[in-house]
Structures are given as structure tokens and as C-alpha cells.
């Protein structure tokens, strides 16, 4: 019997959904633009069975992929679990067999295998489309290939045997100029190993180049950045070890004594040229974009001041500090000619944002002007009676941030809403940066439903042009992507 009653965080809007389904011709408020022709894929997690430990990270829930399919002003919705090996094992056992986030030592003996940690991935972090194929990703395992129409899981994908790392990042980087993908795996040779394998794949999905390197210390490498010349690796104070895992702890702890590093290496090199720049404590999770200009690499990223995951404890025993869990949009300049091994950092906007930043995908790897992300605006109204006592703690706005002019434009979702990550959809035929739509799912805490927001990215303050209403809560996404009909054909 399934019983979530002991999992205190699975309340209200956050109760598990545990269903698969589709909605044909969804209810719409406003008018869906007819030039939106393609699919918005989202990947997140939803517990099929309750976690073995109530304080486990939400990042450990079962992978779930959903799709909003747009055609001729009509939107259809579909959602399915990713059929990982782990999902199928739990289903067969009719209970949760797997323990803490990325700690196989806490698994049920029937599935415990610390020598093959990638077999316990939940593939719940991000969708990817490359070379006409759709995948779900999580950084502790290999991609799962998904049928883009039915969302059925087709199996684990190792790029026809060419991918040698045991893991594959949730943030591979696409080069819109060449069509290449540069991706990596860390803990590449096994649990708590310090190996990083970086691969370049051509536009057909064939591996063309491999780099093997190591980081200054073993840490999480969640996201990177790519320029036309360089691969940029930010890393910060999350730490782990085999001892830590054998003690039954969650995979990552936060060590505030660890400096942050940013590695820069040539895309075409062999890894021996990696240069590590060292800086103050930062929590570097996601990036907007980067570009190389002369001898400098410029990185735009919404980095945090410190540990922002409350479920990854500080290793010194101190309490998690929400005051350090503040992300700002930063410009980081790495001077490759300088003898000084640190970076120059500017905070571009003096208020907190959420670190799920996006840019116009046509401008990845090259100099760009705009970034898009969500942020909490505590001055906006919030109806606590209908939506809970979280006024000031919800992400209620999307912003278009003009990095060149220092200006921003914002969209407010509503007084019972919070916003998940946005995605930018270029207007078909347009070449101007930022000309397109901003789309993303809002959680309506009062109505207990999800609403897909569609806004004009050049005029966010005008509000949404349409909302696609789901009559239920769609599993919260971690990341999403837009794929035009052409990309999937």
C-alpha cells in the first residue's frame, strides 16, 4: 500500500501526483500565437513511491517528462514517467528500494551496488534534443532516449558506445554555429571519483573529440559554459567522499572553507591546458552563457553567495543559512593573459534572482545582450489566505535582463502563483536577439493547477498573451526546452 503520510514536505501543492495522462486541446485564456509550432518539453521529478528517508532531497524523485505540443493555436499536453531501471525495480517491488540522493550505500540490499551508481539514476533533471533525438538527463547517469511523440522511454543511450564516462551532465552545451554539442560527465569513472570526461559531438551525434581531466577537488559540476573557443567549468564548495557515502549521508555536503574555481580550457585541446582561476566562496550552479572576446572569457551567470540547497547540509555542522542563499546576476571576466589567477566579478542587477537563467538559444557561445530568468518580487501582492503563508518567498516574476544597458523588464504571474524556469522561443524567421516568446509553467497554489504562460519576450510588462490551463498540477519541472516542429521532424 502506498502511504505518503510520513513525508511532511509532500503537502498541499507539493503532494505527489503519480499519474500519467494527456489533455487534448487544452483550455486557453487569451490566444495562443499561431506561429508557435513545436513542443515545450519539461523534465522534473515525481515520487512514484515515498522516499525511504523523509529528509531526502527532492532531486531524488522519479523522472517525469511532460510535453506541451503547439500547432495552429492549439495546445495538447502529455506527461509520463521515465522508465529508468530504478523505476521498474521499484514498480516490481511495489515500494521504494533506493535510499538517499546519490548514495547507493543506503539502498535496499536487493539493489545495492555502489560499483555501478549510474544504474540508480532517476533521469529527472533536463530534456535534451540533439541530432533529432530527445533525451532525459541527470548528471549521475546516462541519457534516456525518449520517443518525442509518445514520450515512451526507448532506453539508455551511450552514443553507440562512444561515450566512455559513466555519467552525462544535465547541461550539455549546444553550439548554434556549428551544430555541435559539447557535453561532459563527472565522477566519470565511478562513485566519488575526481575524473571529468568532456566530449564534442557533431551535429549528427557522433563523438569527434574527447578530453579527460580532473578538478582541483572532487565536487559537483552541474553546469558549464561554452564559447566558440573555450569550455568553461565553474566549481564550488559541494563535497563528497566514499567515507561520507559509507556513513549513509546524502551525496553532497557544503564546505564553506572550499574556494570556488573556474576552469577554462580549449575546446580542441587535450585538457592539459586547463587553467583554474580561484575566487571567493560562491555557489556556482547554472550559467546564462559565455563568450570569448580577445584574451578574455566573459561569463554571465546567476551565481549564489553560498549553499542554496537546504537539504545538502554544511559539513561544519552549522545550520543552513538562507541569508547566503541569494543569487545575483553576475558578469565574470577571466583574463587569459593575466598572471593573476582570479577573476573580475560584477553584480549587474542589485536584487536576487532565481538561478535558472536562459538566453536566446541562437546566441549561445557568442556575445549576447539579453538574459531571462525568474525572480521573487516581494512588493507584488500575494493572497496568503488562498495560497499559504509564503508571501515574499515565492518566485512570482519573469525578467528580461539587458546586460548591456543594465535595464530589465518584468512579468508578474499573479497573486497565488509561483513560476518555474522559463524558456525563450525565437520568432520564426526573425534574427534579432530577444525577438520571440517567453514561456514557462506557473504553479497556481490556490487553484491547485498548472498554467503555461506565454508572453512576448520584448514586452513582458504587458502580461501574458495566453495561458494554457491544465486542470491539475503538472509535475514541477527542473528544466525545460523548446523544440520547433522542424527540429523534431
Amino acid at each position, binding site marked *: 500500500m502506498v502511504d*505518503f*503520510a*510520513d*513525508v*511532511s*514536505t*509532500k*503537502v*498541499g*501543492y*507539493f*503532494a505527489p501526483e503519480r499519474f500519467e495522462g494527456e489533455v487534448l486541446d487544452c483550455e486557453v485564456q487569451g490566444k495562443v500565437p499561431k506561429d508557435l509550432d513545436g513542443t515545450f518539453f519539461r523534465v522534473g521529478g515525481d515520487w512514484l513511491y*515515498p*522516499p*525511504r*528517508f*523523509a*529528509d531526502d532531497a*527532492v532531486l531524488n524523485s522519479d523522472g517525469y517528462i511532460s510535453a506541451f505540443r503547439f500547432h495552429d493555436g492549439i495546445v495538447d499536453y502529455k506527461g509520463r514517467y521515465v522508465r529508468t531501471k530504478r523505476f521498474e525495480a521499484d514498480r516490481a517491488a511495489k515500494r*521504494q528500494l533506493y535510499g538517499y540522493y546519490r548514495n547507493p550505500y*543506503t539502498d535496499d540490499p536487493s539493489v545495492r551496488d555502489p560499483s555501478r551508481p549510474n544504474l540508480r539514476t532517476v533521469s529527472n533533471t533536463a530534456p535534451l534534443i540533439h541530432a533529432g533525438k530527445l533525451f532525459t538527463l541527470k548528471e549521475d547517469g546516462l541519457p534516456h532516449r525518449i520517443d518525442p511523440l509518445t514520450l515512451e522511454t526507448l532506453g539508455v543511450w551511450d552514443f553507440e558506445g562512444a561515450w566512455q564516462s559513466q555519467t552525462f551532465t544535465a547541461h550539455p552545451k549546444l553550439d548554434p554555429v556549428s551544430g555541435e554539442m559539447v557535453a561532459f560527465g563527472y565522477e566519470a569513472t565511478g562513485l566519488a571519483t575526481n575524473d571529468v570526461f568532456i566530449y564534442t559531438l557533431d551535429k549528427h551525434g557522433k563523438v569527434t573529440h574527447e578530453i579527460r581531466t580532473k578538478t582541483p577537488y572532487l565536487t559537483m559540476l552541474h553546469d558549464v559554459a561554452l564559447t566558440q573557443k573555450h569550455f568553461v567549468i565553474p566549481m564550488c564548495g559541494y563535497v563528497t567522499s566514499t567515507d561520507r557515502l559509507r*556513513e*549513509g*549521508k546524502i551525496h553532497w555536503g557544503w564546505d564553506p572553507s572550499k574556494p570556488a574555481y573556474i576552469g577554462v580550457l580549449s575546446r580542441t585541446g587535450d585538457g592539459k591546458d586547463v587553467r583554474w582561476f580561484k575566487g571567493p566562496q560562491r555557489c556556482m550552479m547554472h550559467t546564462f552563457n559565455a563568450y570569448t572576446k580577445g584574451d578574455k572569457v566573459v561569463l554571465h551567470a546567476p551565481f549564489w553567495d553560498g549553499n*542554496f540547497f*537546504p*537539504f545538502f*547540509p554544511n559539513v561544519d555542522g552549522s*545550520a*543552513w543559512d*538562507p541569508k547566503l*542563499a541569494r543569487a545575483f546576476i553576475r558578469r565574470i571576466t577571466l583574463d587569459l593573459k593575466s598572471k593573476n589567477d582570479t577573476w573580475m566579478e560584477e553584480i549587474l542587477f542589485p536584487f536576487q534572482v*532565481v538561478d535558472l537563467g536562459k538566453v536566446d538559444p541562437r546566441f549561445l557561445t557568442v556575445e549576447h545582450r539579453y538574459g531571462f530568468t525568474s525572480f521573487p518580487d516581494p512588493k507584488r501582492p500575494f493572497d496568503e*489566505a*488562498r*495560497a*499559504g*503563508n*509564503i508571501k515574499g*518567498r*515565492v*518566485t512570482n516574476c519573469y525578467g528580461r535582463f539587458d546586460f548591456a544597458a543594465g535595464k530589465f523588464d518584468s512579468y508578474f504571474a499573479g497573486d497565488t502563483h*509561483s513560476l*518555474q524556469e522559463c524558456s525563450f522561443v525565437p520568432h520564426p524567421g526573425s534574427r534579432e536577439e530577444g525577438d520571440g516568446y517567453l514561456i514557462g509553467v506557473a*504553479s497556481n*497554489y*490556490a*487553484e*491547485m*493547477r498548472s498554467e503555461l504562460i506565454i508572453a512576448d519576450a520584448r514586452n513582458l510588462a504587458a502580461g501574458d498573451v495566453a495561458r494554457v490551463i491544465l*486542470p491539475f498540477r503538472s509535475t*514541477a519541472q527542473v528544466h525545460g526546452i523548446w523544440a520547433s516542429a522542424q527540429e523534431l521532424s
Partner: protein
Amino acid sequence: VNVQHTRTWRAPVTRRTLMQQMAGGLLAIVATRGRASRAPAHQVARSAPAPAAPQPGPVVSFFLDQPYVDTSGLGVPYLPPRGLRAGQPLAALGQQEFRSIAPHG
């Protein structure tokens, strides 16, 4: 799920407990090292050897649009609106109250 765990200390914060505390307006959750106690808070308090300075217990707090277990007890407790979890608490509501909380219910 907590009873399966014996290797390390973890503070169980149950939804039942949370609901009790929401009703009472107080969030104080029993946490023990080692084997988790599932006794109600008032029984544990009665059997305690001597009154001690109150220690903060885990609370369910809210950050980045998700609730989480704050083991330090310093976080602001998250109190979701009534009647919005799997229909269970809705049984106690009148028709009018139900419609005001979940108009699309």
C-alpha cells in the same frame, strides 16, 4: 518510511505531525538520535526526565518554491492552505468552504 532508517540520525517530520501542529498553531516536532520515536509529542514530553531549555526541532519550511525539512528549526514554518492534500482533509469541510478553497476541486 522513517522506520526503515537505522544508520544515521534523521529527524522524522511527519505530515500527521505537521497537521497536528498546524491545528494547534505550534510546530514542535520530536526528534531523537538513533531510532526514531513515533510517539505523539505530548506523550514524549510527559515521559521526559526533567524540563530543559527548549531546543529547536525540525520544521517544514519553504524555499525556492518547495517545502523542505529544516533540521535547524530556525526556518519559518510553511503552512499550506487547508484542505489541499489529496482530498483527505476536505471531508471535514462544508460544501461552501470546500468550494471557496478548491473552486475547481
